[in-house]
């Protein structure tokens, strides 16, 4: 077991014939993910990835023909909101949107529409997620993982890889690693994923990688203090970020004095969670917390 994706995942990739979509779909297939369909309007009936995956014009067609239950989106930002709504409309239960730069007001509509339909959205502006040894959906390199019992949740991409690599190098395997995305409005929050890890019998410890901006880390800390008894470690990026500037991610901004790394660190520590000064310290913090 693991969370959100696994062997039962039957994935449709929206934008499978694009450069990014094709490259990462191949990597997902090679990892063992059941990529059952692709969607590119106007290319229905073709085969993608050297004849390995059938292409459909619409997600509805793909779901009807293949029983796809999850979607991964690689379409440009201007079309991504519609792609997310299309996936939800076609009846998949999980939508993972990799696309960066989706307008925030579009995301408001998409967020509330998918919530109302009980469709789980990961992202946008995220690297996706991997249930180690079972399925990877998105762009996280498969070779950095080792199977194990630590769940990881992060707002970042390459910083996630950095931490995963450090854990793998230290002999600490992962159950599922989830990148929730760096935008101000994302489908799934830290708290949502922490709740799933907390209930997952195969996840014994949890790592959380936050960054400046918003107050989702603070909310997650309050949730952990109330609900989570599994060992945890955390890292918060952006201690040196100046206020009022967006640090690459649309959501990474200190505004009106709120959303600082200090505030997040203090909230996590108040909840009894050890916060690392460097990503490389995370395995040691987990060992201190009783993880082997």
């Amino acid at each position, binding site marked *: 077991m693991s969370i959100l994706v696994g062997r039962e995942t039957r994935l449709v990739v929206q934008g499978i014939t694009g450069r990014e979509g094709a490259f990462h779909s191949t990597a997902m297939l090679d990892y063992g993910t059941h990529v059952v369909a692709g969607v590119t309007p106007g290319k229905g009936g073709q085969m993608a990835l050297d004849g390995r995956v059938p292409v459909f014009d619409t997600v509805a067609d793909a779901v009807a023909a293949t029983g796809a239950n999850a979607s991964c989106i690689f379409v440009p930002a*201007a079309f991504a909101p519609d792609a997310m709504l299309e996936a939800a409309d076609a009846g998949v239960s999980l939508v993972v949107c990799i696309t960066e*730069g989706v*307008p925030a007001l579009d995301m*408001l509509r998409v967020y509330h*529409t998918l919530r109302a339909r009980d469709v789980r959205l990961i992202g946008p502006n995220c690297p996706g997620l991997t249930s180690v040894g079972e399925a990877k959906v998105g762009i996280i390199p498969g070779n950095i993982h080792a199977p194990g019992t630590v769940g990881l949740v992060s707002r970042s991409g390459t910083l996630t890889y950095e931490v995963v*690599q450090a854990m793998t190098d230290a002999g600490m395997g992962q159950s599922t690693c989830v990148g929730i995305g760096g935008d101000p409005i994302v489908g799934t929050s830290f708290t949502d994923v922490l709740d799933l890890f907390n209930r997952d019998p195969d996840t014994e410890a949890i790592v959380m990688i936050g960054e400046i901006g*918003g107050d989702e880390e603070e909310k997650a800390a309050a949730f952990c203090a109330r609900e989570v008894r599994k060992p945890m470690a955390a890292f918060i990026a952006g201690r040196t970020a100046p206020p009022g500037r967006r640090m*690459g991610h649309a959501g990474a901004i200190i505004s*009106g004095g709120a959303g600082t790394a200090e505030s997040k660190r203090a909230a996590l520590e108040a909840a009894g969670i050890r916060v690392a000064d460097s*990503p490389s310290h995370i395995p040691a913090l987990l060992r201190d917390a009783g993880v082997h």
Partner: protein
Amino acid sequence: MKLQEYRSKEILARHGVPLLAGEVATTPEEARAAAERIGGPVVVKAQVLVGGRGKAGGVKLAATPEEAEQRAREIIGLDIKGVTVKTLLVAPAADIAKEFYLGLILDRGARAVTVIASAEGGVEIEETARTNPDAILRLPLDPLLGLQDHNVRRAAFFLGIPAELRAAFSSVLRGLYDAFMGADADLAEINPLVITEGGELLALDAKIVLDDSALFRHPDLEAMRDLNEEEPSETAAREAGINFIKLDGSIGCMVNGAGLAMTTMDLVKLAGGEPANFLDIGGGAKADRVAAAFRIILDDPNVQAILINIFGGITRGDEVARGIVEARASLEREVPMVVRIVGTNAEEAKPILAEAQLITADSLDDAAAKAVAAARAGAGA
């Protein structure tokens, strides 16, 4: 992207918000001519995006056109928090009876466009939030329905808008909402919104901040960008498609990924140094982008060393290493470079970097320590 007051007012006026638009001037003579056309007392306002311009002497009253010219002469060229004033707004002065704050923000916590209103106008809303939080109304709007009449009434009663001005208030809030949605804003605020001695409701100052991710569908708004208030290196980075923010330290950073870029800066600080910038080079790290990033970083004379941190992942480390070596050959200024490449083909990258006599590091902590040491050695030389 922040818009200047006069641009923000242009947008609000298009949506029917009552205001005294005034005229833009870039010389004292233009300010005088504007005051003559307006007639009566005017206020001369520096157009800068940084806060606190009033305290810095950037906003002044003038009773006559001669005085407007004189005030403009004082304000143009004024340094307000590092920004030199080049543009003025000359607007009719208003007799203020009552001031309010009225704004809309994209509230990420509430996941809603939210009305913010306060009867304590004229001061920054963050200040009111600290000193008197109960004086602020926060009203999240239904994301699918938008601004409804009952939302408008609630704000009007909260602010104590007199009955005869409620219709006018409704058109202010509706105009502000339409402007916010139409421009894909993150923030649109009127501060102060005033009732004049004559009993008129007017927007005296306005600020709009746009969602950068939505600018692709607003070329007219993108054209309102004020390059006077942007670091030239940040303008160059934006045009090269590189995420860059200039800071005050001596260690230049080049990283792939925003979270990892922030972390790299944090570790430079932890190792006793100061980062000179935030720079996310994005995926791929091809030679031409690396070269552009080098130029942008080295444009800052404070930079004494560069720390390059690339998590290969899908990109091949040896390709990145070749790109770095190739780009470095074209540089005019030499500083020590510490390179850390991890992930796919990281081992193959090492001999390439070693041959080019670049300092290498295996861990990020080690890379940060070496960059700090190299910068110190460079500064001491």
